[in-house]
């Protein structure tokens, strides 16, 4: 009885000590790929790392740049996303130009990407790229 009582007290002390310890992690968020459409736009969002670690091997999100050679070679790009089959398996694509094309240069392998494209168009509108500690780093 005494042994049980001592163990209970010790457990309580450990529990309290554990709850008082400071958190050893910053703010994090999970951003699986999501594609959504309405009558005007198709939207796509997600982090590159979460797309890569998704259980559905067909899931992806990203953007890429192309460049022509030559003295004033032009640069152009594309963005693309496919959500997991579990949430519909929808796809979205867009063609960045102007400022959105410039923004692509800030993309890295841990970025979060959001873009929207009009249903009757192809230009990326509202391209948003976020590089933040909140997003998981891409795993091998």
């Amino acid at each position: 009885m005494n042994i049980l009582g001592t163990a209970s007290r010790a457990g309580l002390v450990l529990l309290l000590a554990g709850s008082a310890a400071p958190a050893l992690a910053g703010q994090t968020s999970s951003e699986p790929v999501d594609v959504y459409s309405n009558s005007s736009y198709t939207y796509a969002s997600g982090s590159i790392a979460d797309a890569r670690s998704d259980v559905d091997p067909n899931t992806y999100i990203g953007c890429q740049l192309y460049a022509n050679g030559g003295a004033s070679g032009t640069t152009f790009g594309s963005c693309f996303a496919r959500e997991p089959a579990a949430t519909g398996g929808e796809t979205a694509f867009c063609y960045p130009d102007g400022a959105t094309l410039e923004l692509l240069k800030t993309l890295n392998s841990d970025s979060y990407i959001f873009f929207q494209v009009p249903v009757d168009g192809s230009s990326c509108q509202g391209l948003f790229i976020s590089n933040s500690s909140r997003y998981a780093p891409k795993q091998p």
Partner: protein
Amino acid sequence: MNGRLIIVATIAGLAGFAGGVPFGTSPRNGAERPSRAPVPMPPREHPPGELVRQIKEQGELLAELAGKIDRLAGSAAGQESRGSLSRDRAAPAAVDPLPDPEAMHRAEELVGAALGTGVWSEHDRDELRGLLPHLEAARREALMRKLIVALNNGAMHAQVTGPPF
């Protein structure tokens, strides 16, 4: 060494010129027309003293150049590489790839065929990637627009692993 030979040759040549036959005459001419009045000589622009002074100056300049050549000869390899660098710099700027009408035609054909079947395959993607750099910008945008709209509205399905472009 070569520089010194050049100097000696130049000095000898100039000295011969200065101390030789007067302008406008030659031993041959003189022999052929002994009875004629002497051919008028052009006025001497430089008196002999002045000529000697100029020869000396030329000699000094040549000696200086010869010294420079000797010093630079020691770094011939570096000179060579610098020479090729300057040749590279002088090369004309890279020429922009001109839009290729055949590539444009093929790209439009590719997208048109995919629109017909409703499928955008990996083969289509790979071929388009090869064509894209050769397309005129405005027409490339129009083509991509057609492709993207079709993919987004479901008129065409991308059967590819990874990005469709």
